[in-house]
């Protein structure tokens, strides 16, 4: 009987814990079957990193200091390895136009960032929408899968760079080939993940919906799509990362504006500080766009959060 009572206490603890989504007791307490009733209300014990966001800066700072020391002391030739301070001052001038160190690009950062970001946004929205639609279609219908998937899988391994000549021939020099390449970069990951997300929806959910009266159309929009959403958004995140790669490649080769163009142009003029500043800008934008994407999708994915993973 004692063991049964412990069982009850455990299940109570579990249901309470799950209902509040906060650990009420630690596992040692639960194993000992410590009674909940009568004990003082326990503070939720949530393990946070000891220094919060400050700890996220430790490694970047160490790398920055090491970089500056190596470059200053000429451990590597300055024509091969720019100093951090040099990069920062060129970058600042590029952004706000302080001292003209960025030469023709002084004060033009926002302009180029805007040009690249616009291409990424347009290409990504169109490409991921197309990937989503076709991926869901092929995942949902065996007929569409036999029809479309072989072609898509044939085109998919072609690297984006291999598309550059065709896209220049088709769209000329300018923003259009860049958007086209971003479209390709965003399409494939979204397509693959959408198809697999839809195909992997658990059978028990489909059965549950059908016995509750869902028709085929309702099944797709009310069960299969929501269930596949975490997989689909994972594909879109990968696609967003690819989009930045694509826009930079196309700007280096076929466009006269944007971060990729600045990077390549600075390389021609051996402005190494500027090359590194452009690289850092690209990384920053990719990082920020990923954060924004996750923030936008998070409200729809909260149900799939594991929540208490440390």
């Amino acid at each position, binding site marked *: 009987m004692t063991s*049964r009572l412990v069982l009850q206490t455990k299940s109570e603890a*579990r249901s309470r814990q799950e209902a509040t989504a906060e650990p009420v007791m630690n596992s040692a307490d639960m194993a000992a079957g410590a009674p909940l009733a009568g004990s003082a209300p326990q503070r939720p014990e949530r393990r946070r990193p000891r220094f919060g966001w400050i700890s996220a800066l430790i490694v970047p700072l160490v790398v920055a200091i090491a970089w500056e020391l190596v470059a200053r002391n000429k451990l590597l030739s300055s024509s091969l390895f720019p100093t951090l301070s040099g990069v920062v001052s060129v970058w600042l001038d590029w952004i706000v136009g302080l001292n003209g160190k960025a030469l023709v690009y002084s004060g033009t950062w926002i302009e180029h960032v805007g040009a690249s970001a616009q291409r990424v946004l347009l290409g990504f929205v169109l490409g991921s929408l197309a990937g989503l639609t076709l991926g869901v279609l092929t995942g949902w219908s065996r007929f569409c899968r036999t029809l479309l998937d072989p072609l898509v899988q044939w085109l998919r391994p072609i690297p984006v760079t291999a598309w550059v000549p065709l896209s220049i021939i088709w769209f000329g020099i300018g923003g259009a080939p860049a958007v086209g390449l971003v479209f390709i970069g965003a399409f494939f990951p979204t397509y693959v993940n959408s198809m697999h997300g839809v195909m992997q929806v658990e059978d028990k959910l489909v059965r549950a919906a059908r016995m509750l009266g869902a028709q085929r159309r309702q099944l797709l929009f009310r069960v299969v799509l929501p269930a596949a959403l975490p997989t689909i958004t994972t594909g879109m995140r990968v696609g967003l990362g690819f989009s930045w790669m694509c826009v930079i490649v196309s700007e280096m080769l076929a466009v006269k504006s944007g971060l990729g163009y600045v990077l390549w142009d600075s390389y021609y003029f051996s402005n190494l500080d500027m090359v590194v500043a452009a690289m850092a800008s690209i990384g920053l934008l990719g990082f920020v766009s990923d954060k924004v994407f996750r923030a936008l999708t998070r409200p729809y994915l909260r*149900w799939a959060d594991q929540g208490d993973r440390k």
Partner: protein
Amino acid sequence: MSRILAHNISKYYDTEIRTHALTNFTISVEDNEFLCLVGPSGCGKSTFLNLVAGFIEPSQGELRVAGKPVNGPGPDRGVVFQEDALFPWLTALDNVAFGLEMRGMRRADARARAHDVLGSVGLSGCERHLPKALSGGMKQRVAIARVLANDPDVMLFDEPFSALDAFTRTTLQNELLRIWERHKRTLLFITHNVEEAVLLGTSVAVMTKGADGGRLVRQIRIDMPRPRDSTGSEFNEYKRQIFSDLGVAPEF
């Protein structure tokens, strides 16, 4: 009138060799009967439930529900699954309202009714919880509520309480009996727990696993007043009979 009528149905799967799940199975379930199917794993009891639900089709034989041949799943036959099959992105309330919305009820009306049904299974106050915030017992209550909301003629239970602890199971068994007595309908309840079958059913169908698939051994009426005393001699006599039908009777 028999609500569910199975005549000589068989279900087999042709892979490399033919695997029999159910062989020449004949059973009739009356209106408002609470039939428990009991048997070991692999005796075909879940196969029969899936056939009645319309998730799979019989290889041979005839299966009718309310006089009509079964043709796919439908809201007239609600299923409570063994494992948690709630929609994890919907709140408890929206899980219960789901079936009503699928059948064309306006969202506000569906939610109002779902609210009442959730209350009737003792889950008032949990409307806005996602399934992941509910305990195993609470999830099964929601699963029962979402089927009840559709008001089906037949309710099918596939070992719904087998993953719950003993206390939660007892509470839910009593709750289910209360619901069935208040809103009479035909219940088919799969279990491998003999005690549970005798406690709940108006009759118990005993199944065993043979060399060529599961078959029905016997259907026993349980003539005991409710609430049933699961420690009394009458109860134990039924258990003894069933264990002996199953071929696992202890030697005295």
